[in-house]
């Protein structure tokens, strides 16, 4: 960090033109990969992330299969071209940790006990990264799980909040994440008021942390509404196509 970027101007506007508690524009699509049992795509700001779900299917290798529930596996991975400097395609320590916390954030929503001895595999591919990829990854993976028809207690939705340029902000972009003071990613099950992922790095007082958590949960609720719309849109499209073919 040689020069400090001005993250928030005097009018309280952020580098990408947003207000402090404003989400980036989000685009969600469900059912876009034909081979996967379920799939979804998210654009959140410049983030572009694909998620695919395979399963429940026979667990391989077999000895990993669990007698009483499905084995849930998750791979969060960044494409080499997704960031400024080429990222080696081999999984980094960061990606291994994120795969673990993302899996743990999704697991409480899934009725794994319905599918003993099988595996459910979630693949998250970050095609372009712009800060907040683990949260967008959880939001999109949850849609892919729903698209795969896997029974779930709730949709999981995730969003980060934090502190940048001395102020509390929602949904940090890449530069706010890198040069800001703190980042608090949160995953949430709205119907249960339950937090399934919580991390923080940076420095915050307890009061600031509480503000960030409240802000993040508010962001989660907004994105949750978009998730539901995206799921309905897929079936609306199928319904309309069916109606057209009936008319013919």
């Amino acid at each position, binding site marked *: *960090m040689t020069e400090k970027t001005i993250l928030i101007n005097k009018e309280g506007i952020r580098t990408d033109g947003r207000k402090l508690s404003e989400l980036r524009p989000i685009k969600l699509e469900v059912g876009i990969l034909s081979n996967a049992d379920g799939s979804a795509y998210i654009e959140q700001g410049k983030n572009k992330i694909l998620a695919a779900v395979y399963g429940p299917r026979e667990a391989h290798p077999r000895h990993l299969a669990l007698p009483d529930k499905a084995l849930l596996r998750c791979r969060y991975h960044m494409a080499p071209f997704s960031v400024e400097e080429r990222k080696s395609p081999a999984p980094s*320590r*960061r990606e*291994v*940790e994120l*795969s*673990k*916390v993302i899996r*743990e954030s999704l*697991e*409480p929503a899934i009725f794994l006990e319905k599918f003993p001895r099988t595996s459910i595999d979630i693949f998250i591919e970050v095609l372009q990264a712009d800060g907040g990829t683990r949260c967008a990854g959880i939001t999109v993976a949850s849609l892919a799980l729903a698209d795969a028809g896997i029974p779930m207690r709730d949709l999981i939705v995730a969003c980060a909040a934090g502190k940048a340029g001395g102020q509390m902000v929602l949904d940090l972009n890449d530069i706010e994440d890198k040069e800001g003071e703190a980042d*608090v990613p949160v995953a949430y*099950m709205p119907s*249960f*008021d*339950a*937090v*399934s*992922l*919580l*991390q*923080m*790095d*940076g*420095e*915050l*007082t*307890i009061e600031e*942390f*509480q503000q960030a*958590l*409240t802000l993040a*949960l508010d962001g989660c609720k907004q994105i949750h509404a978009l998730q539901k719309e995206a799921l309905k849109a897929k079936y609306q499209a199928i319904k309309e196509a069916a109606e057209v073919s009936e008319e013919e």
Partner: protein
Amino acid sequence: MTSIMVSRIRRQQIAQLITDGKRLDGRGLNDFRPIQIESGIIEKAEGSARVRLGKTEVMVGIKIDLGEPFSDRPNEGVLTTNAEFVPLASPEFEAGPPGEESMELARVVDRGIRESKAIELEKLCIIPGKKVLVVFIDVYVLNHDGNLIDASTLASIAALMNTKIFKYELKDGEVEKKPGLTPLPLKDTPTSVTFAAISGKLVVDPWLDEEEVMDARLTMTFDKKGRICAIQKGGVGTLSPQQIAEATSTAKEKSEELRKIVAKR
């Protein structure tokens, strides 16, 4: 964490006792196990410490080397943290490449130290963009009886506090080591506090059987000013926003207690 077998009757007992505000080993819900810290136990390492947290035992060795800075931080030394689950520490640990649990442990310990800016990395720069000192924190788990994160953070801080770096001078752009040692520049002592969520309650410093029973785990690291510098939730259960709010105030208080214990060293 690891899948040690805990019998159903013991699981029920642990969970039932916590509902009544008690624990199987007699501790209160917010009590740590007894903590013992020894430092400077490995002469070949630039810094070292061994922490016993109840029966959990963790050793940390610090090695210092010359290296190149990261291109986006040309004026700072480099910190790298690694954790090894040595097979002698638990029947569940196996030799081989690091698994996701040891990577998570290393990254959570690293996050607390890095984000609190405990090590003055800018003082470890020798030639900007070319030569800096690299601080290696190697966490070695010797006996796993639960709460490796807090034991490892304590051991890392204790080891950093007793780390001495070699003196050097620059000759024609080359670094030459000189006799004598100086302390590693440290300006903070982050300490972490880990909770297990069991029966809807949070208990501090879970031992292994409690970790087997817990729904979720929550770690909060505080710096000496009482600010949060790292958080990590683990496990497949969930936490309510109220539980998280309660945890922050308990964790702040407990992290102060731990800081006093490390400072006594």
